[in-house]
C-alpha cells in the first residue's frame, strides 16, 4: 500500500490485544500479502470477532433447517423474511444484547432494541412489533443469592426494563410480549434478547448488496462518535472478569427519536426508487456495513472518512471505522439520483453525505482526506474469516440418585399454600408491572398484548390476517439436557403460537451460551443445535435467522445453555384470535393431551418433576431430567388448536408450561376477570405431579357445553386425547380435587393477589 500514515506499528502483542490469534494473524498477512496497519488490524479484529464472524458456531449452524415454501430469505441477510400471503412478507429476527446490558443496563437494553429494529427496516419492512426475552439473576435473597446480590439484580432488571421501554415507546412500535425468567446463573450475565417483526410488500424488499460501479455510497443518520468502539469484539466476544465494569465506555448510547426519523426517512427514500442497497451500521459499524455490502454484491467499495459526519473532532481512521455509534445507515444510490435520496433525509432533519462509491475489483478502500488508510479485499474479510471446529466434550454425568430428587407429598396433603408460593415466584407471577412500562398498543394493531393470549397477536390492517409471535427458552432444562432443552423451547413457542389460533410457520433463534473455548460448552451448543434442528423440522418451522451469543460467563462460570426461540405464526382470520381467559359460567374445561397421557414409573416421575419450576421454588431442587419430548404429539396438539380456532369452537385456550396444569388454570381464571373454576382430576399418582408437572404437548381449553362433543371429535380425529376436567364458575373459588379430596381450594381474588403482586413484592415495591 502506498501511504500508510499510521503512527502505531502493529506487533504480535498488539494483534493479541485485539483478540487476534497468531494463526489468524498469519491469515491476515496472507490475504493482504503484507503486514496490516493499525486501522486494518482493527477492521479485521471486529469482522473476525466471534460476534460478527460466527467462527465457532458456523460449522454447527449449517445443520439447522433453513428452507421452506414460505421462506423468502433465510439466514445471511439483516433479517429473515417469510411470505404471509396477498403479496405481503414479514421480516423478523431475534438478537442478543447481553453483555452491554450487564455493564450498563439501560443503554445496553435500549440499544439492543434499536439494533434489531434497524435490522428490520433495513429490509424495507416497517416494524410492527417487538418482543423481549429477558433473564436475570434472582431478585430475592435465597440460599445461593445474598441480599446484596439480589439488590444488584433488581437494579439490573429496573435498568433493562426502562431501556426496553424507552426505545420502543419513543420509536412508536408496540412491545407486545416476551418472557421474564429468573435463575441464579444469570446474576452476572443477564440475557436481553430482543425480537422485532416488520411487514413489507414483497416487491418492496431491500437487500444489502452493493451494485453498479460508480454508484454513490451514502452515509445517513446520527453522527459518528467515539462510543461503542470494540463493542462487538471486546464486549460481546469475551467473557467477563472483575474489571468488566470498566468496559462501560464500550457500550453504545441509544437515541430512539433519531431512529424514528431514520425509519421514516429510509422508508421514504426507498420509495423514490433511487436506493440500490442499504445496510444498517450495527456491530462493527462502518467496517461491517462497507465490506459486507461489497462482499455480498461481488463489488469493491471506496469511502473517504473525512466525509463521514462526526460528533467530535480529531477522530482517527481507526476510531471512525470501529465506532458503534447508533442510528446510522449506509446505502448505495443510483448514480445521478443521489439528490433525491439526500433530499428525503434533509426533510427529516438527518445528516446524509456521499462518502464514497461502488468500485470494480472487490477491494474495500478506506481513505482519510484522500490518503489510503486501509485497503482490504472485501470478500475474504467478510466471508473468509477463520472457522473453528472447536473441541467438544460431554461433561461427566451428574452423580444423582433418587435421594436428590423431589419427594412427593403424601396423598391428601393440602397444596394450597405451596400453590400460592409458586404463584408468587417472580418467574411465574404476573409481569404486569414490567409490561405496563411498555407501550403495548401504539399503531392500534395489538389484538393480544402481554398475558392476554399465549402468543402476542398483531393484526395487519391491510388484510384479514393477523400474525402471532412467541418467544420461549428453558435454560434450566438446557443445563440438565441441552438437546431436550432446545427441543422444548421450539415446542413451547410453537404451542404458544397455536394456542393463539395461529399456525406456526417459521422460527428465529438466539443462542446464548458460555465460552466456546470450553469443550463442555461446545458440546452443549452442538447438542442444542441438533435439538433445534429436529424440532424445527418436525413442527414445520424453518430457522430464518437469529444470532449466537457466546462468552456468557463471568469469572469462569457459564450461564445455563439457553437457546431462545421466537416463532411466527399466521392467523388466517384475525377475528378468531384465542385468548387465555375463561369466559362464561358453565363453560366446560377440557385438557388436551397430544401424547395421550404418560406411563412413567414413580421414580421417573420424581426425576422429571425435579426439573420443574415447582421443585425449584418449593424444595430448592434443580435435578433430574426435563420431561421426555414427543415431537409428533406436539404437532398433533398444534394442528388441533389451529383447527379448533378456525372452527370458532373454543372460548379460551392456554398451553401448559411453567407450573403445569394448576398455574395454567389459575392464569385462565385471572385473565377471565377473576373467573372461578371447579376441577376434578382423575388420580393415578401424586397430586403434585398431576397439578404442577410440566410435560409438554398439553393445553387447557374451555368450551361452551353444546360444543363439547364436536371439540372431542375433532381432537380425537387428530390423535389428541381429551379429558373433561371441570367447569368455569363465577363464585370466586378455585377448587382442584384429586383422588376425591380438595388439594387446592382458595378464593380466586386471594390467589390473584399473590400472583398479581408477586413481582412487585419481590422487587420490594410493595
Amino acid at each position, binding site marked *: 500500500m502506498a501511504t500508510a500514515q499510521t503512527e502505531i506499528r502493529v506487533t504480535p502483542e498488539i494483534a493479541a490485544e485485539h483478540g487476534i490469534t497468531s494463526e489468524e494473524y498469519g491469515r491476515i498477512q496472507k490475504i493482504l500479502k503484507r503486514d496490516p496497519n493499525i486501522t486494518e488490524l482493527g477492521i479485521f479484529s471486529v469482522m473476525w470477532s466471534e460476534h460478527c464472524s460466527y467462527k465457532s458456531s458456523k460449522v454447527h449452524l449449517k445443520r439447522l433447517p433453513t428452507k421452506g415454501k414460505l421462506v423468502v430469505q433465510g439466514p445471511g441477510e439483516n433479517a429473515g423474511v417469510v411470505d404471509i400471503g396477498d403479496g405481503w412478507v414479514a421480516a423478523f429476527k431475534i438478537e442478543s444484547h447481553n453483555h452491554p446490558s450487564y455493564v450498563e443496563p439501560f443503554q445496553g437494553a435500549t440499544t439492543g432494541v434499536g439494533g434489531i429494529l434497524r435490522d428490520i427496516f433495513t429490509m424495507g419492512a416497517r416494524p410492527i412489533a417487538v418482543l423481549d426475552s429477558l433473564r436475570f439473576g434472582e431478585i430475592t435473597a435465597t440460599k445461593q443469592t445474598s441480599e446484596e446480590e439480589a439488590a444488584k439484580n433488581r437494579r439490573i432488571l429496573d435498568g433493562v426494563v426502562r431501556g426496553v421501554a424507552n426505545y420502543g415507546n*419513543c420509536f412508536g412500535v408496540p412491545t407486545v410480549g416476551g418472557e421474564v425468567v429468573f435463575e441464579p446463573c444469570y446474576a452476572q450475565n443477564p440475557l436481553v434478547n430482543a425480537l422485532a417483526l416488520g411487514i413489507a410488500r414483497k416487491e418492496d424488499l431491500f437487500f444489502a448488496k452493493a451494485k453498479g460501479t460508480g454508484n454513490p455510497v451514502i452515509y445517513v443518520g446520527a453522527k459518528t462518535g467515539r462510543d461503542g468502539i470494540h463493542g462487538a469484539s471486546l464486549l460481546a466476544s469475551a467473557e467477563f472478569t472483575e474489571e468488566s465494569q470498566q468496559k462501560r465506555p464500550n457500550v453504545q448510547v441509544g437515541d*430512539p*427519536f433519531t431512529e*424514528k426519523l431514520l425509519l421514516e426517512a429510509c422508508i421514504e427514500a426507498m420509495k423514490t426508487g433511487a436506493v440500490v442497497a442499504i445496510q444498517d451500521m450495527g456491530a462493527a459499524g462502518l467496517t461491517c456495513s462497507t465490506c459486507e455490502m461489497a462482499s455480498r454484491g461481488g463489488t469493491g467499495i471506496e469511502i473517504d472518512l473525512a466525509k463521514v459526519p462526526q460528533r467530535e473532532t480529531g477522530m482517527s481512521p481507526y476510531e471512525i471505522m470501529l465506532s458503534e455509534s447508533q442510528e446510522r445507515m449506509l446505502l448505495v444510490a443510483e448514480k445521478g439520483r443521489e439528490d433525491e435520496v439526500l433530499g428525503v433525509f434533509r426533510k427529516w432533519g438527518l445528516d446524509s453525505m456521499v462518502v464514497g462509491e461502488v468500485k470494480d475489483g472487490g477491494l474495500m478502500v478506506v481513505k482519510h482526506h484522500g490518503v489510503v488508510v486501509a485497503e482490504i479485499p472485501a470478500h475474504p474479510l467478510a466471508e473468509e474469516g477463520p472457522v473453528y471446529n472447536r473441541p467438544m466434550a460431554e461433561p461427566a454425568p451428574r452423580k444423582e440418585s433418587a435421594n436428590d430428587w423431589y419427594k412427593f407429598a403424601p396423598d391428601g396433603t393440602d397444596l394450597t399454600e405451596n400453590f400460592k408460593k409458586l404463584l408468587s415466584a417472580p418467574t411465574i407471577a404476573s409481569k404486569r408491572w414490567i409490561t405496563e412500562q*411498555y407501550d403495548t398498543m*401504539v399503531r392500534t394493531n395489538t389484538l393480544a398484548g402481554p398475558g392476554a393470549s399465549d402468543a402476542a397477536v398483531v393484526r395487519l390492517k391491510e388484510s384479514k390476517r393477523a400474525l402471532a409471535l412467541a418467544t420461549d427458552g428453558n435454560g434450566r432444562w438446557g443445563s440438565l439436557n441441552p438437546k431436550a432443552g432446545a427441543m422444548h423451547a421450539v415446542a413451547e413457542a410453537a404451542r404458544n403460537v397455536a394456542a393463539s389460533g395461529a399456525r406456526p410457520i417459521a422460527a428465529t433463534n438466539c443462542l446464548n451460551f458460555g465460552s466456546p473455548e470450553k469443550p463442555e460448552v461446545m458440546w452443549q451448543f452442538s447438542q442444542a443445535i441438533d435439538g433445534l434442528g429436529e424440532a424445527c423440522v418436525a413442527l414445520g418451522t424453518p430457522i430464518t435467522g437469529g444470532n449466537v451469543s457466546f462468552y456468557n460467563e463471568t469469572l469462569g462460570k457459564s450461564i445455563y445453555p439457553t437457546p431462545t426461540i421466537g416463532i411466527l405464526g399466521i392467523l388466517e382470520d384475525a377475528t378468531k384470535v384465542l385468548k387465555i381467559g375463561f369466559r362464561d359460567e358453565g363453560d366446560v374445561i377440557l385438557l388436551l393431551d397430544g401424547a395421550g397421557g404418560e406411563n412413567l414409573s414413580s421414580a421417573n416421575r420424581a426425576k422429571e418433576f425435579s426439573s420443574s419450576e415447582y421443585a425449584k421454588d418449593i424444595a430448592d431442587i434443580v435435578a433430574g431430567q426435563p420431561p421426555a419430548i414427543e415431537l409428533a404429539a406436539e404437532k398433533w396438539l398444534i394442528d388441533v388448536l389451529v383447527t379448533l380456532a378456525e372452527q370458532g369452537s373454543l372460548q379460551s385456550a392456554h398451553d401448559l408450561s411453567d407450573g403445569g396444569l394448576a398455574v395454567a388454570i389459575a392464569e385462565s381464571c385471572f385473565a377471565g376477570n377473576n373467573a372461578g373454576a371447579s376441577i376434578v382430576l382423575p388420580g393415578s399418582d401424586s397430586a403434585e405431579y398431576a397439578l404442577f408437572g410440566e410435560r409438554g404437548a398439553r393445553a387447557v381449553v374451555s368450551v361452551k357445553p353444546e360444543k363439547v362433543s364436536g371439540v372431542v371429535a375433532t381432537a380425537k380425529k387428530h390423535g389428541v386425547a381429551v379429558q373433561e376436567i371441570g367447569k368455569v364458575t363465577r363464585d370466586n373459588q378455585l377448587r382442584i380435587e384429586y383422588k376425591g379430596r380438595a388439594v387446592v381450594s382458595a378464593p380466586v381474588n386471594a390467589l390473584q393477589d399473590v400472583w398479581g403482586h408477586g413481582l412487585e413484592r419481590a422487587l420490594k415495591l410493595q
Partner: protein
Amino acid sequence: MKFGVVVFPGSNCDHDAFYALGHVLQKPVEFIWHQSEDLHSCDAIILPGGFAYGDYLRTGAIARFSPVMKSVEKFAAGGGMVLGICNGFQILLEAGLLPGAMMRNVGLRYICRHVNIRVEQTDTPFTHGATGGQILRIPIAHNDGNYTCDEVTLAELEKNRQVLFRYTTPEGKNDAAGNPNGSMGNIAGICNRGRNVAGLMPHPERAVESALDSEDGLVIFRSMVEALIGAAKASA
C-alpha cells in the same frame, strides 16, 4: 368537513388518529407536516401522541415553536376546533392554548394501560355526544401525565367547567383510586374557556373498535364530527 392530523417528526400516534377518523369513521382526513404553516383548510385539527421532537427537554417544549403551531394558534383563536391527545395535550399546555403543566407520573414510570375516565361536561364539541357522568374505558400511555396548575387556575377551571374528563374507578366512585399518574384533581382532560380547544392524556384513537378491547373513544370523535356538521349547517 375535513380533519387535519399534525405530524411532528416524532409523532407516533399520527397514523392511529388518521385511521380512527378516516377508516373507522370514514371521514375526510389529511396529514399536516410540522414545517407547514398551511392547515390545508381543515375544519378540525388533531395534535396526536408521540414524542414530537424527541422530548428530551420538557414534553412539547420544542414543538410549540414549530411553524405549524403558529397556524394552529391562529386557528384556535378564530374559534377552530383543536384536540390534543397525550403529547398533543402536552404541546397545547406548552403553547399556552390550555392552562397548566405536566409533571412526570407519580412513581416516575411510563404507564400503558386501560383507565376509566368520567365525562364531566357535555357542552363542548368534544363531549356533547356523551352523557354527563358517562364512564369511558380508554388506554393511557405516557411518562408525563401528572397534570398540575396553581390554585387560582384550578379554581378557574372548576368554576368555568373546563375539566372535561377525570380519572375514576370502573364504577365512577372513588376518583383518587382510579388516578394512575397523580394528576391534580384527578384531571385527565380539560378545555379552554372558549371550549374549542381540548386536551386529554388518554388515547381515544386506541379505543375505536371492539377488536382493540374498547370502542369508548368513538364518542369523542363522533362529537367532533357532529359539531362540524352543526357548524356547517349554521353557516349555510
